[in-house]
């Protein structure tokens, strides 16, 4: 059991990193990776939401959709509805309870609804037949993988400020190329974990 959980983490952080090998969450990856501070905040917020979503998705799948046979067509709608509301709820609660916490990561929450990692995690959980604990860990791993990608990219981008990137490549282009190189490097982990 522990071994499986460990594999799930390693797989979603390194081997099948959500950004570099599953192509998920690229828009915020592109947008929020220019400063390390922001990257860390965004990463933490996403990890939090992902973990919560994983749990929520598990319950909806197992206690609403499956019993009534609604899974094939209501999955998407119900998941996204829950995610959107959850995110908004968390945002409001955090804002009220701790403005400091809100400033640290709450402000990233609205961005997360449109982060496709969240829905993808929700959809992958039924697909992979994970149980509750596995689902939670999967959500956590996805978040950590995303955070790692963000931090690496933000560090490189901060250094790039001092570089002399050709004008045409400035902005998203060089970020994509760098992401490509990072994805290439992450392929080194290919075959690390039997899946």
């Amino acid at each position, binding site marked *: 059991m522990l071994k499986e959980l460990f594999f799930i983490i390693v797989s979603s952080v390194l081997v099948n990193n959500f950004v*570099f*090998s599953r*192509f*998920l969450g690229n828009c915020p990856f592109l947008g929020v990776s220019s400063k390390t501070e922001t990257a860390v905040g965004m990463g933490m917020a996403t990890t939090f939401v992902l973990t919560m979503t994983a749990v929520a998705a598990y319950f909806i799948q197992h206690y609403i959709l499956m019993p009534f046979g609604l899974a094939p067509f209501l999955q998407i709608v119900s998941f*996204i509805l829950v995610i959107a509301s959850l995110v908004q709820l968390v945002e409001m609660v955090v804002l009220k309870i701790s403005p400091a916490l809100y400033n640290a990561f709450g402000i990233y929450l609205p961005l997360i609804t449109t982060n496709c990692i969240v829905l993808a995690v929700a959809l992958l959980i039924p697909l992979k037949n994970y149980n509750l604990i596995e689902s939670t860990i999967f959500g956590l791993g996805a978040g950590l993988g995303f955070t790692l990608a963000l931090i690496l990219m933000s560090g490189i981008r901060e250094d790039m400020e001092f570089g002399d990137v050709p004008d*045409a490549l400035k902005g998203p282009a060089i970020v994509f190329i760098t992401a490509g190189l990072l994805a290439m490097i992450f392929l080194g982990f290919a075959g690390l974990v039997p899946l």
Partner: protein
Amino acid sequence: MVKDFVNGLWGENPIFRAVIGICSALAVTTAGQNGIAMGLALTFVLTCSSILVSILKNIIPSKVRIPCYIIVIATFTTIVDLFMKAYFPALYQVMGIFIPLIVVNCIVLWRAEGFASKMSLIRSIADALGMGLGYAWAITLISIVREILGSGTLFGIHIMGANFTHWVIMLLPPGAFLVMGILVGIMNMITRKPVKNTHCH
């Protein structure tokens, strides 16, 4: 109206200019036909959602607008999902999870929030079609590059000769990012704006 349409095709092309909704643009673009199919699927969802959002824009209270828009988008996405499963099972297998993910494709919400919820129905449709097709041609272009180099084929037809060494990387994640980056760069070069004369305007 025409302007709204062309805007999505070129000026604010979601992939190359606004650089948004790129996950699917990277994930499914291993072969030309995937690009076209994904593009059409998105265009459908985008257009339907834009129509509905534009119609409902005055009814929906702003506090719950995001959940509402998302439900609308999710509904249309599921419809596409079901239809693809029913009628194009082979394609469906390739695109896997990325059809459902149209829901969170940033383009859709971007246009719903940013355009359809403010503009007239007609303009919204024009905009949605422009954006959708802009997305479609962009990802088809990416697909073509990756397919030719990675498999030596174009829409499934061998074009590179028998001895062609496949560039495996092109079909793998890094290839997607690299092609995307280079194409965005080329696009920047083509559309690089001449220095604007801001002296007297």
